[in-house]
């Protein structure tokens, strides 16, 4: 956002705009809003389940404790699936489509196909979540849905996530940008990864522990190549766009892209250090996790180098979009560095099986990807709807509640996980005592879940209020 902001606070209002949208943007409006509204609805549902799961955890009594649907194993699974497949995927369907159309300057024709994919995705997700609550799940995290859901999600993805790539292939412009590479890479990689994982874990299960190997490969790819790559695409777009300057060391971006995609796929077995899989596989995963520091450092040069020059951080702090996006960029760097360091055997031995892995995962999925999506929404929605954000106060509530809630949670997961690991490493400490020692972190997670819910409700109220107030589409020919 380029408007002058002397208050030093995030702006609740969009920048310039004549209330009309361009033809290119008008062609995106339907699919974008379908994905965006679905994403926010799923985010609210996941947040409510997150609060219930957090309150449930660590307490021996409770209203819902004796209800099969709300037992911890099911509610935590449903919450995670809603967040990843409901919020994360819908949000990036919308954001990736918009980025490709903006940078490729194409009109999104046959957008109904993407909308059909979006509807199919959400229906399959609803069915999958209902089955999880009923106890029909597979036992493999993030592949929890009964196997018949997988092919539907894959086809829906091809329509919703891959159709924009077909439109991109016919773009009128020849030049491409880093954001486009990351979007194309993410949208092409995910269906391959998902179908292969479905095949080897659920449809034609591999022998014994190879199932666990295939599962860890899937999780690493899902997190890095879908969430990580999609978030990087947005970071590489919004940072120079809003700051109105070229990224520092942008010539290194192709190296970041290729090393990111080259190494991410090998990192899965790093999550299996100490597990009953061959040592060479574990070591390959550890080396790949360390090699991921190369793209992480290059991204840091591009992003933090830009923010650190010409008062970039100050401008980022004073701009709603950039404040969220910069938060996401810092979280990406932190996730990459910690992921590389804690993959090593000596470190992994301490934090394995603790909440530390959750903390690392959430740094990428929430701290980076979700915060970037929030920031992007503040930029895109006013342009797409021609309306203003209804409330600046809700923008403040959204930022502070999500930022503080997330920071509290990530500290609880990482520091609590490290402490938990230290106690687990000492065989003299009884297991019950280790769990009791984590009670204070459990309380932090409860408070954090409530804060995140508050932030998400504020965001939803503002976004839905804006969409409902938006004038009827009227395009301008530019």
């Amino acid at each position, binding site marked *: 956002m380029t408007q002058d902001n002397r208050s030093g606070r995030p702006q609740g209002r969009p920048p310039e705009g004549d209330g009309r949208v361009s033809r290119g943007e008008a062609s995106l409006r339907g699919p974008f809003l379908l994905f965006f509204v679905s994403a926010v609805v799923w985010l609210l549902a996941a947040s409510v389940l997150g609060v219930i799961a957090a309150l*449930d*955890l*660590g*307490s*021996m009594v409770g209203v819902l*404790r*004796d*209800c099969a649907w709300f037992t*911890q*194993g099911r509610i*935590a*699974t449903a919450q995670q699936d809603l967040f990843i497949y409901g919020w994360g995927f819908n949000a990036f369907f919308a954001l990736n489509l918009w980025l490709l159309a903006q940078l490729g300057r194409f009109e999104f024709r046959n957008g109904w196909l993407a909308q059909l994919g979006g509807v199919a995705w959400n229906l399959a997700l609803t069915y999958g979540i209902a089955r999880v609550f009923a106890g*029909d*799940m597979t*036992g493999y*995290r993030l592949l929890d849905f009964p196997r018949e859901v997988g092919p539907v999600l894959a086809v829906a993805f091809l329509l919703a996530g891959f159709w924009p790539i077909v439109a*991109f292939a016919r773009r009128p412009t020849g*030049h*491409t940008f880093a954001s486009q*590479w990351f979007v*194309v*890479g993410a949208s092409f*990689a995910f269906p391959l*990864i998902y179908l292969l994982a479905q095949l*080897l874990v659920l449809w034609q299960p591999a*022998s*014994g*522990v*190879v*199932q666990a*190997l*295939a599962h860890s490969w899937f999780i690493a*790819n899902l997190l890095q190549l879908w969430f990580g790559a999609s978030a990087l695409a947005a970071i590489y777009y919004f940072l120079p766009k809003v700051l109105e300057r070229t990224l520092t060391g942008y010539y290194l971006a*192709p190296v970041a892209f*290729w090393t990111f*995609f080259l190494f991410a*796929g*090998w990192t899965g*077995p790093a999550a299996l*250090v*100490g*597990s*009953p*899989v*061959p040592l060479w*596989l574990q070591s*390959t995963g550890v080396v790949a996790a360390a090699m991921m520091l190369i793209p992480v450092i290059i991204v840091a040069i591009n992003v933090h180098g830009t923010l650190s020059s010409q008062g970039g951080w100050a401008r980022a702090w004073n701009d709603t979009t950039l404040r969220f996006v910069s938060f996401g960029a810092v979280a990406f760097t932190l996730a990459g560095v910690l992921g590389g360091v804690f993959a090593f055997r000596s470190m*992994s*031995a301490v934090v*394995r*099986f*603790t*909440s530390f892995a959750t903390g690392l995962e959430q740094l990428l999925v929430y701290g980076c990807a979700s915060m970037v999506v929030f920031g992007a929404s503040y930029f895109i929605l006013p342009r797409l709807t021609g309306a203003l954000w209804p409330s600046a106060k809700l923008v403040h509530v959204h930022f502070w509640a999500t930022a503080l809630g997330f920071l509290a949670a990530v500290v609880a997961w990482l520091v609590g996980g490290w402490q938990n690991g230290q106690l*687990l*490493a000492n*065989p003299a400490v009884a*297991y*019950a005592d280790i*769990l*009791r020692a984590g009670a204070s972190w459990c309380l932090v997670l409860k408070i954090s879940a409530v804060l995140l819910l508050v932030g998400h409700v504020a965001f939803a109220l503002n976004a839905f209020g804006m969409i409902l107030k938006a004038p009827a589409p009227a395009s301008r020919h530019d």
Partner: protein
Amino acid sequence: MKNLNTLLAGVFFAVALPFGALILSGQSQLGGLGRAAGEEGGALFPSREPGLAIQGRAVYVSLGCVSCHTQQVRPAGQGSDIARGLGARPSVARDYALQSQVLLGERRLGPDLANYGARTSQINVETLLTDPASSGAVWHPSYRFVDAAQRTALVAYLKSLRQDYPSPEAKLKK
């Protein structure tokens, strides 16, 4: 990078290479594992799962137990699993060779269950499921809503979890 085909081909190989090298070669290395005797002339292990235990595993999965429990004992040097008494030896790939669904787990909010059958009694498991507070468990949910048939199957499954036999790949701790 103007050429979309180059980009797509690069991404395809970035996904296919690790898949082939990690998963397919892993399958080729471990796919032939079966029952074996830990010592010459000894009994073959792992044992085949009883039918009731297979039903119990379905209950275990449907309750989401895997989100809080692991089923793997790490070697000495990777945590204190053996010193803590979770097993007499580290878990090896052969232990899972006959399992149609391998539930190694990622998180230990509760204790590891790889050897649960070897270190607990029938009564303890029943109490843990129906009245966890009185069994001394911390944070364990109550499963009073699980019907008797399912509970019996779940108990059979948990009792079947044991890696207390010698394996060619790992000797038992004396």
